[in-house]
């Protein structure tokens, strides 16, 4: 017990208890992500104008991430790319979550439905993730729509398994049987007894899906199967800057890559800390 207390009251967060600390972390990281999205949306086209007078500049106070071979400010390009990544991630993981809920609920309908959905999950998991995204993306005509659909249609497997297992486990609980014996209908039991257990799982699953979706979108774009080159995207920035790395323009890849990593880690942190808040019993795991 004493060691736990000591670790809580150390460093920047001294003076806060664990709950306040968790809330603070969630607040800060959400604010960071929100700021990225809002600023990327509010930047207009003109902020990315080409200026060949200032091309390939080193990072400086004026251009914190440097400039590229067309004189564009890399900081703004990175922000725009991250913003669109987050938005695509949000959209794709929302669709994936809806798919996961529908399939998870369907699997509790009967034995045939259950084995079909398990088979479907296994099928999707047996194909390498990125390959499947690229296939679906090409199948839907590539570009932004292609990659969004590709990411959305491949990230539901994990959450479907969680929802299915959770429902299975809940259905054997004594209080569910008792509720039925007290004359409650199936619908009543599903909404009042089962749903409250599922909501935290679904919320967490969605947030933890974000980093995957963002990274997969960036990878597909990096490989040239995603967003088109004129759109601001981290994948595009990274693949373009590969050509300039050997020329010593390290900042072209370094800062955008680092920013992507920070965004992904921020989502992970939000997810984990929300998990701690919603299920304090499992916080130690």
């Amino acid at each position: 017990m004493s060691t736990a207390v000591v670790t809580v009251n150390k460093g920047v967060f001294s003076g806060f208890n664990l709950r306040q600390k968790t809330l603070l972390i969630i607040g800060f990281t959400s604010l960071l992500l929100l700021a990225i999205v809002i600023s990327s949306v509010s930047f207009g086209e003109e902020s990315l104008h080409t200026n060949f007078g200032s091309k390939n500049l080193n990072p400086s106070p004026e251009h914190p991430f440097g400039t590229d071979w067309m004189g564009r400010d890399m900081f703004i390009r990175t922000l725009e790319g991250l913003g669109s990544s987050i938005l695509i991630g949000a959209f794709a993981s929302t669709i994936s979550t809806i798919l996961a809920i529908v399939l998870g609920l369907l699997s509790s309908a009967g034995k045939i439905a259950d084995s079909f959905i398990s088979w479907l999950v296994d099928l999707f998991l047996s194909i390498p993730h990125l390959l499947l995204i690229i296939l679906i993306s090409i199948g839907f005509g590539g570009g932004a729509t292609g990659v969004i659909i590709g990411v959305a249609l491949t990230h539901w497997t994990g959450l479907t398994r969680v929802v299915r297992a959770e429902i299975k486990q809940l259905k054997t609980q004594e209080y569910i049987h008792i509720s039925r014996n007290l004359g409650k209908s199936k619908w009543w039991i599903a909404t009042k007894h089962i749903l409250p257990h599922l909501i935290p799982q679904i919320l967490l699953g969605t947030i933890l899906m974000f980093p995957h979706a963002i990274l997969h979108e960036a990878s597909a774009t990096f490989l040239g199967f995603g967003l088109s080159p004129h759109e601001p995207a981290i994948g595009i920035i990274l693949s373009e800057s590969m050509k300039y790395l050997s020329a010593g323009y390290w900042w072209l890849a370094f800062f955008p890559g680092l920013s992507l990593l920070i965004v992904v880690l921020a989502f992970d942190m939000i997810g984990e800390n929300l998990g701690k808040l919603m299920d304090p019993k499992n916080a130690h795991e």
Partner: protein
Amino acid sequence: MCLKGENISFGYKKNNLILNNVNISVDRGEVLGLIGDSGSGKSTLCKILAGYENDHKGNVSIDGKEIPSKGYNPVQLVFQHPEKAVNPKWKMKDILNEGHIVPQNILDSFGIKKSWLNRWPNELSGGELQRFALARALSPETKFLIADEITTMVDAITQAQIWSIVLDIVKELNIGVLVVSHEKKLIKRLCHDVVYLDDLNNA
């Protein structure tokens, strides 16, 4: 009015019957004790009588009529582990009133305090939770109560308290009770009549 289980056979595996041709009946207002060793199928018989287990052979009926599978079941089962019988995401007042609004006099006789109603299940002890489970099951619509080792996890004093309350309410509502236990002394104190599962069971 009489709850009857006739020719009940059940096995969790094929060719391995736990219950074979068991006949049992409880009258309304009667308190019947059922004694059996661990693993003899007591709980399984309880689940069959209360309609929790439907893959059995034989009939369960009240006055010759089958118990409808929908709606309030007049046969209510209370389990050994009350912490499993409550939804951990519900407040105690919702758990208590899930079947019917439990009247204040029953709360008083069980000693359920008002301050408990706003708590979560994990903030109450096993004995306290079991009072809620019993109050929830003892509605005016309940005709038979099956008590499957309901006081095994509490101390002797609480055991005596809970049973005296239950027997009072049961008498008032004219409910038939099947008391299941492996404690012969307890059953002899509580029940009008005692049956041994080994005598009923041909498995």
